[in-house]
């Protein structure tokens, strides 16, 4: 009975993944066979940037969730493992022809081979042979990227995983920073290109299929990251639902009880750490492909925090939450909130008046909400006074703006997007602490009966 149910569930999941993958191919090729597609669907649209970056980030977020959410090990080393993956991928796939150009400061690369070129030597560099050798080279480089990250995780896991909570976070954060410094070291230049970026390796757009005339026939540049991410996330989901996944969750819930049940704590923590790092490494390779370069400078702690933020917003311990949050986050930061960065001017006096009125209403509404909350919680006069501050600020600025007669929309200029974004994040963390999904998955939302009974 139970077995049957889960089988049905996995079939549905598989169909969903296939539909999404098919949808992505369709979406990015619509402009090929239709003349007048809207601006959004053209290949240069922000939509595809968001989809590509979202796919890459969702893999990294899910890998972080495996460790932080499911095993309960609070690690902040994700950027470090991504860096290892990105560099491994980049170093192994820079074509022989561009090595001298990329490594010109160091007189050529110390790595005297390139995986795609190795395969091209066997299969031929032109036409189908060339395409197959490129795909094979990229694939193997990606797996190696994961393995290198996993190997380093295993190495530092031995001493570091004895630490608990904050100490583990600090140690892994430190490890990531050390890696970043080492990869920028000039002495390692012939391999890592020092502080300069490695580029010219195959990227997502290398997967677009062209005809002999050099015209693109089929776009696959968004499909490829989706495929890799979907595959990796599916493996992680299978792992979480296996007996290993149960052991991870047991460790998260109660280490002592888990140990008493015969679960080897250090072995399982090490395993979870290595697997999480493997996928972070693959994610790093994808990230290098996305940004078309690999440079240690980009893999700083801000990147880790970005991923951590996604995991928290999505819900610690929810895979689908992480994926949804990733796309929402990337879409906001890369696309939807961009308008906040461009100064805009009102066209007429009446639209300006309407804006002023709307601003005043919004300010008062927010204050009313806060006041109601403060009253419900019996916070006293201090809380009430604090709740009035936004109203005073809002209305005060509104009056000043009305008096000054400026026609430009207030606040909108470079950098304001990040301010708004920070406020949104603060609201999420303060009022929706469990994130979007808590520990639930999308599939749980379609099981109304069990949920309702559980609520009783």
């Amino acid at each position, binding site marked *: 009975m139970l077995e049957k149910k889960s089988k049905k569930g996995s079939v549905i999941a598989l169909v969903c993944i296939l539909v999404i993958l098919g949808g992505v191919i369709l979406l990015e090729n619509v402009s090929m066979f239709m003349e007048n597609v809207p601006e959004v669907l053209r290949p240069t649209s922000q939509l595809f940037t968001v989809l590509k970056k979202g796919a890459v980030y969702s893999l990294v977020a899910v890998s972080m969730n495996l460790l932080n959410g499911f095993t309960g090990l609070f690690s902040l080393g994700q950027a470090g493992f991504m860096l290892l993956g990105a560099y491994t991928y980049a170093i192994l796939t820079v074509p022989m022809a561009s090595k001298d150009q990329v490594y010109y400061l160091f007189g050529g690369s110390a790595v005297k081979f390139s995986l795609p070129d190795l395969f091209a030597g066997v299969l031929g560099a032109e036409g189908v042979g060339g395409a197959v050798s490129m795909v094979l080279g990229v694939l193997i480089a990606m797996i190696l990227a994961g393995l290198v990250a996993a190997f380093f995780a295993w190495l530092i896991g031995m001493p570091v995983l004895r630490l608990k909570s904050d100490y583990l976070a600090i140690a892994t954060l430190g490890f990531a920073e050390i890696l970043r410094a080492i990869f920028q070291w000039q002495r390692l230049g012939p391999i890592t290109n020092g502080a300069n970026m490695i580029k010219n390796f195959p990227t997502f757009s290398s997967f677009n299929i062209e005809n002999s005339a050099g015209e693109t026939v089929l776009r696959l540049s968004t499909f490829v990251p989706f495929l890799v991410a979907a595959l990796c996330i599916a493996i992680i989901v299978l792992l979480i639902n296996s007996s290993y996944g*149960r052991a991870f969750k*047991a460790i998260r819930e109660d280490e002592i009880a888990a140990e008493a*049940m*015969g679960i080897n704590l250090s072995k399982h923590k090490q395993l979870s750490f290595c697997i999480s790092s493997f996928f972070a490494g693959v994610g790093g390779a994808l990230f290098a492909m996305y940004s078309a370069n690999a440079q240690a400078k980009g893999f700083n702690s801000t990147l880790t925090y970005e991923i951590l933020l996604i995991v928290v917003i999505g819900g610690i311990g929810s895979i689908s939450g992480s994926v949804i949050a990733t796309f929402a986050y990337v879409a906001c930061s890369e696309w939807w909130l961009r308008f906040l960065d461009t100064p805009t001017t009102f066209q007429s006096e009446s639209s300006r008046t309407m804006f002023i009125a709307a601003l005043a209403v919004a300010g008062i509404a927010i204050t009313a909400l806060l006041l109601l909350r403060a009253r419900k919680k019996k916070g006293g006069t201090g809380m009430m006074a604090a709740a009035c501050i936004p109203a005073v600020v809002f209305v005060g600025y509104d009056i000043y703006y009305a008096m000054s007669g400026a026609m430009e929309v207030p606040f909108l200029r470079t950098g304001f997007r990040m301010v708004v974004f920070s406020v949104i994040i603060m609201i999420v963390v303060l009022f929706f602490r469990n994130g979007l999904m808590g520990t639930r998955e999308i599939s749980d939302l379609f099981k109304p009966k069990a949920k309702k009974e559980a609520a009783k």
Partner: protein
Amino acid sequence: MLKINDLKVNYGGIEAVKGISFEVPEKSIVTLIGANGAGKSTTLRAIAGLVRTSGGSVEFMGEDITGKDTTEIVSRGITLVPEGRRIFPDLTVLENLKIGAYLRKDSLESDLEWVYDLFPRLKERHWQAGGTLSGGEQQMLAVGRALMSRPKVLMMDEPSLGLAPIIVRGIFDIIREINRQGVTVLLIEQNANMALQTADMGYVLETGRITMTGTGAQLLADEKVKAAYLGT
């Protein structure tokens, strides 16, 4: 079946268990009673491999298992039901039970059936999160989870802790039932009355040493035990 010889355990320089010896015969119920800090829990944790011993030996079915790790000891057939139940609160009852059987690779169906037969309540609630169960049900779950490893010896650390008297009686009925089905039980308790009524053999532990030995009935009748542990 289980033979403890001169077992010593140190906790950061303090000798919690100062050389105790006792035996648990096959298919019996043996209890260790004693006040707080007498070294009862430490003894069980040492047998389970959760704390390091500083002397003496533990022998199980003729083999020395001193200093082996918990994974090894559980797979040989000694499982501990930890003090304070310690179920996994966010996992469902079924998942909790499956983790109990983590070290086994064979089919769980018959054992799940067995545990559900012993605790019909768990079957009703198999999809609920462990943390939503009542205290008594959580204790059932803790025992059921340990039974899923198919133990030869089940060690229980204060199963009556924080439970109402009527529920405690139910738990002890279950302990007898499990024992009747062939599982050896090593039980430690502060509720000396219940424990001694249930046990075949009892040992009184005081500040890390065994001070008295006897069958359950003998100890129940003993004046000193009555004064110190039974409050009569």
